Each structure stands twice: as C-alpha cells, then as structure tokens.
C-alpha cells in the first residue's frame, strides 16, 4: 500500500500540491486523473522520490519512505517520453537495474528474456530503442521497471506520447498485465476514458488538491463536485442543476410536474446515439443524448417544441 499524508509542495510561489492525502490499496491499479497543472505528476514524482515534499510524508508498505532516495525505495518508474537508454540495446536497457545490483549473468539473461516475453518483445533483444516504435519503447520501459521487482509501479502519463490507436491497445494490454503481475500501480493520466477503462480506483485532482477518490462507476454516478462531474463525462446544465445528457428524457407533451419546455435547435445523428441540442425558455442551451430508437419515436426536427425532464443519479446543484 502507498500512503500519502498531508503532502505539500511549492515551486517558488507556486503551490503544486496543497495538503494532499491519498491511499493506494495493495495490488490495485489506481489512476491519478486531472487536467495539466493539477499537480498529479508532482505527486507521483514525490512518491517516487524524484521530488521531495515541503511537508507531509509518504509511506510504502507501512514504511516511511520520505527520507529514502529513489534508488532504495523499491519503485518502478515509467516516464511519458520513455527515458530509454538510447546507447543500449533492448536487452541492456531491461537488464540495467539487475546489473547495478550485480546479479549473476545467467540469472539476468533469463530474467530479461522472461520479461521481454511478457511485454511482447521477445526477439527484440539486440535492437536499439531508435529501432522501436513508440509503443514498443514504452513496453520496453515497463519491462525495465518491472525487472527489479518493485514494490510499487509508478506510471507518469505512460501513453501520453502515443497516437490514439496505440494508446487504446496499450491501455487494454496494461490492464491485462496488471491482472497477471498484481503489482500495486499508480498511473497518472489526463484522459478520463483511460482512467475509467483500466483503473480500480480513481483520484481526481484539480488545483493542487485531490477532489474525490473512488471507483470509476462511483465517481461517475455520484460525483462530489461539479468539477469531478464535468471532468468524468459530458454535462448539461438544466436550470440550477448539472445532469448527464443521457439522463435527460424528452416527451412531446407536458406530462406531470417538473417538465420544462424546450425548443429543438439541432439534431445530430451519431450512429446509435442521437444528440439533441435544445433551447430552454430562459434562453440557455442544453444537450440531450438519446438512443436512436427514442429519437425515431419522437420524430424530432428543428423548431419542434418538446418537454424535458431529468432523471438519474448524477445530478448536482451548481
């Protein structure tokens, strides 16, 4: 378990972390999610020992890690831009941590081959990083970090420099790898879809603080703040409340209480999903998300008057 308690970090006058506390359960894959500048990378680097906090402490497996150098912390760190050792082959890159630990050569060779097989780079031993694609380099970096059998694995935007398709593939792959290796993992990302799809637990950060920690579903359905709600998915503002566009239902006539009158200003067909842009009587714009069947039944077109009501759990007052 990684336990961060009351960590504060300043760079000059800029407060990068403001009294942050977080627990990462053993064997979990936790995502630190937030916009750029929210402090998530700084928090990861403090846990890894690459930065030292001005106040607060970091515990790894119950042991105070705050005064321990990164060399001795028992961490694996993966950088956004791979930090591949360019002058070394893939084999030497992965073997690096074992070589500085002076392990026997046979053991190193076997361990490297085994790890390269796990990350899908068997047969690439004699290549140089410049001969690998971005995704392959990052998998090599992951094998390198895992070689020293770290207590915790820290990933700083590991897929941030890759294009969208490779990113989606590697994301799935990382989740599967985690299910096999079970090392406690903390992953920094600004991509909510990435966090939602692979993490057991998400800590949402904004403005140098942690806004909310919870399982992906919990954060989506019961966001604590408007920021968390809007960062995890699309939102529409209806009157004084924030709702998810798919929690808005439309009817052709006023039925019961609480329905609001709205005019259809645009209908966008996105395959299965239909996005309806509406204007309320007070002039504000609202987006509703319907299924194709629902939209077909309503036969919506521009200028129609409909009645709008909101349902669902994720509704927050502004």
């Amino acid at each position: 378990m990684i336990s961060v308690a009351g960590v504060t970090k300043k760079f000059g006058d800029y407060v990068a972390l403001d009294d942050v506390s977080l627990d990462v359960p053993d064997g979990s894959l936790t995502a630190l999610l937030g916009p750029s500048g929210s402090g998530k990378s700084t928090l990861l680097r403090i846990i890894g020992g690459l930065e030292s906090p001005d106040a607060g402490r970091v515990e790894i497996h119950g042991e105070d890690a705050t005064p321990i150098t990164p060399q001795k912390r028992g961490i694996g760190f993966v950088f956004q831009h791979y930090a591949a050792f360019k002058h070394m082959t893939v084999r030497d890159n992965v073997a690096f941590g074992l070589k500085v630990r002076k392990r026997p050569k046979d053991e190193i060779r076997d361990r490297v081959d085994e790890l390269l097989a796990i990350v899908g780079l068997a047969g690439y031993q004699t290549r140089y990083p410049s001969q690998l694609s971005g995704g392959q380099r990052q998998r090599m970096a992951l094998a390198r970090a895992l070689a020293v059998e770290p207590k915790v694995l820290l990933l700083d935007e590991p897929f941030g420099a890759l294009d969208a398709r490779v990113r989606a593939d590697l994301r799935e792959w990382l989740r599967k790898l985690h299910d096999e290796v079970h090392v406690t993992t903390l992953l920094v990302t600004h991509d909510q879809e990435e966090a939602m799809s692979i993490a057991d637990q998400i800590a949402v950060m904004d403005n140098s603080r942690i806004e909310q920690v919870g399982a992906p579903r919990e954060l989506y359905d019961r966001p604590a703040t408007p920021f968390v709600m809007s960062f995890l998915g699309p939102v529409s503002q209806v009157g004084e409340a924030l709702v998810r566009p798919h929690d808005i239902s439309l009817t052709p006539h006023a039925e019961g209480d609480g329905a609001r009158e709205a005019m259809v200003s645009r209908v966008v067909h996105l395959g299965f999903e239909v996005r309806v842009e509406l204007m309320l009587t007070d002039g504000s714009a609202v987006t509703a998300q319907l299924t194709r069947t629902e939209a077909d039944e309503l036969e919506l077109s521009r200028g129609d008057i409909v009645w709008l009501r909101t349902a669902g759990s994720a509704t927050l007052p502004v």
Partner: protein
Amino acid sequence: MTVDRGWRLGLRTVALAYLALLLLVPVGLVFYRTFEHGVGAVWDSITTPAAIHAFQLTLEVTAIAVPLNTLFGIVMALALARGRFPGKALLDALIDLPFAISPIVIGLSLILVYGVHGWLGGALADAGVQVIFSVPGIVLATVFVSLPFVVREVTPVLREIGDEQEQAAATLGANRWQTFWRITLPAIRWGVAYGVVLSVARAIGEFGAVSVVSGKISGKTETLTLLVEKRYGNFDLAGAYAASALLAVIALGTLLAMTLIKPRREEGET
C-alpha cells in the same frame, strides 16, 4: 525566393575566391615551398634536435593540458546544465573569458601571478618550482587558452538529452557514479570527443600566450609554433616552412577527426 542564375554563379565565385585567397592558396603554398627542394631537405629540417624537442614538447604540453580541460569541462558542463546554485550565470559568462582575452594578455597576466616577482611566483620559486620560462608555464598558458572548448561542446548536449534518463537510472537503483559512467557519459561522448579535438587543435597551435611565458629557450621551452617563428626571424625560410607543414599536417588530422565526429554529434547518434 528565387535567385537569378547569374547571381548564384556570381555569389559562388566570390565565396570560392574568398576561401581560396585566404585559405587554400596560403596553406597550399606552404606545402609547395616546403617540398620545393625535395623531401630529403624537409626531413633533415624537421629532425634537427631542436625541432624534435619542439615537437615532443608540444605533444607533452597537449597531453597534459587536454585531459585536464576535458575533466574540468565535463564537471563544469554538468554543473551548468544540471546544477542550481547562485552565481551560475556569472560562471557561465566567465568560462568564455579565454576566448575574449587576447592570448598575449593571458601570457602577461600569468607572468604577473607566477613570475619570480609575481603574486605566487616568489613563494613557488622558494619551493624550487619555476613556472614562468619553464614547462609548467607553457602548460598553464595552454590550459587557459583551451579551457572553454569541452564545456561549450558538452553543455548544450547535456541540456538537450535532459535528465530523464538519469532519473530513470536512479529509480532502477543506480547511484550517481554508476549513472554517470553508464548513462550520462555514453550519451555525451560525441560532444566530449568534439570538444577534445578542438582543444587539441588549439593546444598545438597556440602561439601568443605560450610565446610570452616560455622564454623561448631552444631545446628547453620552445614549442613547434615558437620554432616556426624563430626560424622565420632568422631567415631560415625553408626550415620555417618545413615546421609549418608539420603543424599543418597535424591540423589536417584534427580537421579529419572533426569531420568524422561532427555528424554523429549533431544527430545525437549513439
């Protein structure tokens, strides 16, 4: 922008003529004059005891000055690229001082400090160490004039590669020393090599500062450049040309080394 064909030809001719008149013709003439009276005469001229000693002294001084400056240059480049300390900007500017000051002023300032009546020279003389008009003075002058090359070549390379690889090495358990030898040094090696070649060229060719501090004692403190000057002054033109040709050959050798190193350094190839 398109440049008229005539203009282009004209510009090329001017550029080539400029290079030819300033560079190719003078250096070519040195070689021509050198071998005008046959190879035997040249051989005799560069194998006199004074010439051999001058050649040896030049190599000896270079062999001391360049490693010193390489070590200093790498440490200083690491401090400038990675360190955070007060006065860094000032230090950065000071490194270029040897480029800015005329070598002859450097020579004179060394005499002021290390001469017999100088600030440190008296104490050193009492201890039996003669700096000025002796080999240590030549080494000091050479170190001084070739000081900035390695720093200036290595610092930008260090800045460009960044410190992520070093941080990665640290998280993998490598201490600072292991990180330097296994990660940093291999990454900057072509920058170091280029700086070393430039330092060697400068150390061998240095004249002004060495001329002031050496005393020009034939067979003792006379370097190759000083030998050329002396022979020229004594109207031994053939001898001067022969020694010059030797210097020029060494220079061509360094030029070749630079040409081989430069593309690798610029690509950051490893």
